[in-house]
């Protein structure tokens, strides 16, 4: 299976499975290597990276919600240069493409990113995250600047403004749209008693983003690939995105709640799915077992 997740013409990004983790969920490298079989994934999307070092948000970073969570980390990262230095070797050993998620801060920053990234073969593509408060002109300018980076360019749209910003991102040269970033929301922190804001994750996000993907699929030209992202918690959720018009999907916090679900979804959409026979022995593979565990069981057995 080969899935092309960028529009034809420019440098293209090809994945062997249309399933990847969303930025911010699996770290910069191979943190999940003991829990998830990376070979089954289409790509790794790194945590968001900025040009300068960003410190973690202070105060509440996590608020449990009924059927979900609110997360606000402040995108801590040591800056692009350090991220590359620290992770390059790990990336080179990964069996799948690495897509660097760049937080879209400013056009000069995009230029600087190009200087750091161009020539780095281990980075297979860029996912540019657009801020929620950006308007159409700003989005156009930022994406235009990012196209100078000589890599396939995915643009991740904010939730509320996805339909408004998509045309600007495409006009500016985005090779694919990631729809969408997790919606921002506000909730009460049970510890401090204060209202806090952050991104909202949980299964109920899926029907909302699924509709946006369907609308955008009808709105933008057919050759623009859309990658669906939001509230995917099961293989069926992922398949729903494909039916609504996405060529690939990103799994977000379901990975935290149940790491093997990421692999399970990848196996399902990647055509690797195997269902355990009713009378299967313990050492046979089970969709939720994970390749690593299965391999161990085989070795033990």
């Amino acid at each position: 299976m080969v899935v092309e997740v960028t529009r034809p013409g420019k440098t293209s990004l090809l994945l062997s499975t249309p399933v990847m983790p969303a930025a911010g969920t699996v770290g910069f490298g191979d943190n999940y290597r003991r829990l998830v079989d990376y070979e089954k994934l289409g790509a790794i999307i790194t945590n968001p990276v900025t040009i300068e070092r960003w410190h973690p948000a202070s105060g509440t970073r996590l608020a449990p919600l009924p059927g979900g969570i609110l997360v606000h980390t402040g995108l801590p990262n040591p800056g692009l240069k350090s991220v590359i230095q620290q992770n390059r070797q790990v990336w080179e050993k990964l069996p799948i493409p690495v897509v660097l998620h760049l937080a879209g801060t400013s056009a000069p920053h995009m230029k600087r990113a190009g200087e750091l990234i161009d020539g780095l073969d281990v980075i297979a593509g860029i996912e540019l995250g657009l801020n929620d408060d950006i308007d159409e002109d700003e989005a156009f300018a930022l994406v235009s600047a990012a196209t100078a980076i000589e890599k396939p360019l995915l643009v991740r749209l904010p939730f509320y403004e996805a339909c408004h910003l998509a045309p600007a991102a495409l006009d500016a040269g985005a090779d694919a749209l990631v729809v969408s970033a997790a919606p921002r929301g506000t909730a009460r922190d049970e510890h401090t008693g204060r209202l806090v804001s952050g991104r909202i994750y949980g299964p109920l996000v899926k029907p909302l983003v699924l509709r946006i993907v369907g609308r955008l699929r009808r709105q933008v030209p057919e050759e623009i690939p859309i990658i669906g992202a939001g509230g995917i918690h099961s293989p069926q959720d992922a398949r729903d995105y494909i039916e609504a018009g996405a060529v690939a999907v990103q799994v977000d916090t379901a990975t935290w709640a149940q790491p093997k679900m990421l692999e399970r979804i990848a196996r399902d959409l990647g055509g690797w799915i195997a269902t355990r026979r009713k009378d299967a022995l313990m050492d046979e593979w089970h969709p939720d077992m994970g390749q690593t565990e299965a391999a161990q069981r085989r070795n033990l057995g």
Partner: protein
Amino acid sequence: MLQGGQFDNMKDTQAYIERIRRVSRDYQRLELAVDKSLSSMLAGQAVLARRIEKDYEIQHWNPYLRELWFPVEILNSNIIVVEVPAATSYQPGQLLSLLGPIGKPFKFRRKLRNVLLIVYDTPPTSLLMMLPALLANDASVTMVLMGTACQYDTGHLPEEIEILHAEEDLSWQDMVMTLGWADQVFVLVGPSKELSNFADVMRLVRERRNDVPANYIFGVFQRQLPCAVGACYVCMLRSNAGAKLQCVDGPAFDLTTLHLEN
């Protein structure tokens, strides 16, 4: 900044509840039949637990994230014991998914004679696993309960532990002596207001003891860990040596090196 960290023992394994024992008015202990890989856990390490339903499917997304459980005892290569509130009902035979082991074991000094445990606004559960080993090595252990920790019924803890209850101002009897005499101090606070609670305790200690040496007083963090593998950065702390993650570098950190202002 930090790398992914060492997770070479971390696994997601199934466990089931073998036995349930009520140990006090408010707490019960679950004996969990676990994968052998968890039997080598040491005091300070934890697992993330989640109930699973048939065919590994999660049907109820509330709570969304796993619970952080520090075992209180490793019975044998198959059974670990956790202590949880009696108010939550469990049944023997229930299936769990356990992610772990998480974090680094507590580091004890070579010649440890006197250990002080300070437990503030949280049950002392996360510190209990160290007790048998300390007692077996003839260390003497004092546990000071502060704030809501005073409500914890210690009847089922080993008799050798000296239990003290702090006053409302957090002071306790013979405080200066206890602090001077301790070779190592572990401070456990609840996840609510943790940094400011650690800061309270440090203020208390600094008032009583001019020199607070390195590797003397450790804060033990119990934040909810979304990923536990150093990916999400929700559990990040700031220290003199840069950013640290509870799930990778913790749960215990030298309190003299942490930035406790919020």
